[in-house]
């Protein structure tokens, strides 16, 4: 962590957009380099607060390879004023950044086990650092599976990378979309349906799920039906984060704050309150 970040966690550090990659109609990936200083280390699953000057701040998970040198990689969807401003930033633009924050994916706990990644839509972005980590330490894990579901074929994120991963002999990648036109040659249906086809040992597996909350609930149910215990399932939660250090309470989720107790949380610790309407 930079000395400035230690001194005052609310002061963002300036980062310059080194490269912008358009992913889909409303999603872009930005490579951000620190303007002076070094990027702090981070762990897969953690997030940063990105600040579009004069507009606002938003929590975005890191989507790059944590072992790669350089800056941060963030994949941002244009869904509002702040995320829209950030997603549209071009190379050379500067934004504010503070972080990294939050709990990581259990990549160490998962060693020696099969690993089941389940991503829905943009949820593939926060999982991608964990996928990079597992693939770069492949011998430490059993079978590795990625199940990815999204809205339609044009919405498939990181398409080239998915195709590259599919060609590996030690990584099973299954992709499905919610709907498609008749030209589509792949699977159509929701992502939990892929679980029955995936090759993993439910008694020795760790599942990491990221996507819309409803999708994560349905997926966790399907994984439980497949034989996984709730303590083998981990999800990445999302709430409106403001301070990101557990002070303001905006991201309160029952007895937890998503920003410091999450975003990655073990499913058995939150399953009971996931369906409570007021929470």
């Amino acid at each position: 962590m930079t000395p400035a970040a230690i001194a005052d966690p609310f002061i963002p550090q300036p980062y310059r957009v080194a490269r912008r990659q358009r992913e889909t109609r409303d999603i872009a990936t930005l490579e951000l380099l620190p303007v002076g200083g070094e990027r702090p280390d981070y762990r897969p699953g953690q997030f940063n607060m990105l600040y579009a000057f004069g507009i606002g701040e938003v929590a975005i998970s890191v989507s790059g390879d944590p072992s790669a040198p350089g800056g941060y990689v963030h994949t941002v969807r244009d869904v509002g004023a702040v995320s829209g401003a950030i997603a549209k930033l071009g190379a050379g633009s500067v934004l504010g950044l503070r972080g990294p924050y939050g709990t990581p994916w259990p990549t160490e706990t998962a060693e020696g086990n099969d690993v089941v990644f389940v991503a829905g839509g943009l949820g593939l972005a926060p999982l991608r650092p964990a996928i990079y980590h597992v693939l770069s330490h492949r011998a430490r894990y059993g079978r590795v599976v990625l199940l990815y579901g999204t809205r339609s074929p044009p919405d498939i994120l990181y398409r080239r990378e998915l195709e590259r991963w599919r060609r590996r002999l030690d990584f099973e990648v299954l992709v499905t979309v919610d709907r498609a036109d008749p030209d589509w040659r792949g699977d159509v249906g929701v992502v939990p349906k892929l679980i029955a086809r995936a090759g993993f040992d439910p008694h020795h597996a760790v599942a990491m799920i990221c996507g819309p909350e409803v999708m994560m609930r349905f997926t966790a149910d399907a994984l439980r039906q497949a034989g996984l215990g709730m303590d083998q399932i981990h999800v990445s939660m999302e709430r409106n984060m403001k301070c990101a250090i557990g002070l303001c309470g905006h991201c309160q989720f029952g007895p937890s704050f998503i920003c410091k107790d999450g975003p990655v949380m073990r499913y058995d610790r939150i399953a009971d309150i996931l369906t409570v309407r007021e929470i």
Partner: protein
Amino acid sequence: MEGLERIVLAHPFFAGLEKELGEVVSGCARNHRFNPGQYLGHEGDPADEFFLIRAGKVALEILPPGQPAVMFSTQGEGEIVGASWLVPPYRWRFDARAMELTRAIGINAQCLRDKCEADHNLGYAMMKRFLPVVMQQLDETRLQILDVYGNRGR
């Protein structure tokens, strides 16, 4: 017939079915091969058969008026296509098109309905297999209707 019975009982949909009931079901079964683009059923046609998919992939489609077909599900090896034979008016509710070379066992609907009516043990065994499939499809449809990957999603 013995070969067909073995194939029917080996299909995941009939996992655990008593051998005697399997023999009865197999009496309504026949082999099918569908080439890519060939239809297993068309919306509105009599649902006189349902299919146990052994290999290949089948697209389930609906045709909105004046628009291209929308594929809302695919079914593959180990899955079934068609539940409309269970309830009146016994007509297909969608189009089912083979996306690739597809091998399937077709179960004659009238034959099986008659046998279920005559032997409620068989009828109950069939319901216990079809109801989870229908429930799962209902869950999947709920998720699709929610359109969770739209702008309100993550």
